[in-house]
């Protein structure tokens, strides 16, 4: 393997590794390369990171090599990351609560609880905080409980013009049934979709 190819390979390996990569690990992974070659290539990689046009550098740390962004760009990086709208991530309890609100709105906390069987209090707080749900006055009932409905942000996030565009349960029922009844004809041994496993877990955590 020529020096360039080796450097490229090392760079790729250090990039994907979560932990600092040690010389020993690299020797094992690339048995056709000598320790000296490795060391020399790594040194060149480290040096290459020092050029001003590079925003990443490889540093020796904790007995191994690891990739870092350069300190001088931290401010820019931090600013950028902070300005990002991360993809919508919700825990399963929050998702369940959101689903109930979306389909039953406007709805009160006791009503959500009755449907979910679990008090939605903390999930509601999350949804309110993320701006996916807003309050919609009070219900004319005992205790005048607060009503909740989905927000404009909710519509934006899910690409809906209005809540009328939500798929009806019947529509998805058919699809879901088809996917359950008819096992995928894909190569056998496909594990059950990660979704359901995660779910069970989250549910357990939720109890």
């Amino acid at each position, binding site marked *: 393997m020529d020096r360039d190819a080796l450097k490229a390979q090392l760079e790729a390996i250090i*990039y994907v590794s979560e932990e600092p990569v040690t010389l020993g690990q690299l020797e094992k992974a690339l048995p056709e390369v000598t320790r000296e070659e490795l060391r020399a290539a790594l040194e060149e990689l480290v040096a290459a990171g020092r050029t001003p046009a590079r925003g990443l550098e490889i540093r020796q740390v904790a007995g191994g090599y690891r990739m870092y962004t350069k300190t001088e760009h931290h401010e820019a990086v931090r600013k950028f990351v902070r300005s990002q709208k991360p993809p919508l991530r919700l825990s*399963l309890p929050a*998702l369940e609560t*959101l689903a*109930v609100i979306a389909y039953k709105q406007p709805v009160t906390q006791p009503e959500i609880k*009755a449907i979910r069987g679990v008090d939605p209090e903390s999930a509601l707080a999350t949804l309110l905080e993320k701006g996916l749900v807003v309050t919609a006055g009070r219900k004319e009932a005992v205790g005048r409980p607060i009503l909740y409905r989905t927000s404009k942000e909710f519509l934006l996030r*899910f690409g809906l013009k209005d809540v009328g565009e939500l798929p009806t349960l019947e529509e998805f029922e058919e699809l879901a049934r088809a996917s359950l009844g008819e096992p995928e004809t894909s190569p056998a041994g496909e594990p059950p979709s990660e979704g359901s496993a995660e*779910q069970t*877990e989250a549910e357990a*955590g939720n109890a």
Partner: protein
Amino acid sequence: MSSAGGAGENIVETHPSLHLDAYEGPLDLLLDLIRRQQIDIFNIPIAQITQQYLDHLHKMEQLNVEIAGDFILMAATLIYIKSKLLLPPDPTASPEEALDPRVDLVQRLLEHEKFKNAAQMLQQKQMLEQATWSKPDAAFAGEEGELVVTLWDLAKVFREVLARPPEPPSLEIHREEITVAEMMDEVRQLLRGTDAPVALVDLCRRHPTRRGLIALFLALLELVRLEAVIAVQSELFGPISLRKHKLFDVVFAGEAATEIDEQYN
């Protein structure tokens, strides 16, 4: 037209052996018949292909494979095209009607084939993509069990919530504060989707506390009075069961439950 006739008796000898269950639909089967025999798709020998197609359906029957309606419909289409080709051209027909009756089918087959090719291309792209890594993938693995959510997840989750069996009563759950209105709502949830009777005993078990039972009793009295629910006992001292009554929908459409609740507060 000539192609409709005996174009290829010799090809029938080399009848392609096909795996019947491998076909996802009639277009798939038809396209495979044509491609395997290297038939010119723009000049399909309809008689021959129709025969082969029907043979396959017969084989499927013999194997007790359930033949989807789509396959039958295609058989009918093929026979129709065949018969049209056998007729002499109608001199009074408009130019549109005088078109080769195979044209539509060919278009559909070509369209279908295009997407089959596109699917293969996608698969190749995906395999290539799988050979590269982008670092923050690690983050996608789900922080603290959180999910990236689509509308599908939302609808699916809602279905699951609705389908979830009610939780069995547990000592930790304090249901004492349950109100008559909530209890009525619970009865409504229970009976809403079904005309089948629900055993009163089961309902009572879900509310083992004194206050819960009282609220349940009051709620049931009201519901029976309003004719939303009927209590049935098939024999003396037999089990009592509850069923929807004639005013079920009417009562729960309004605010009756909350009004009643207020009386008890």
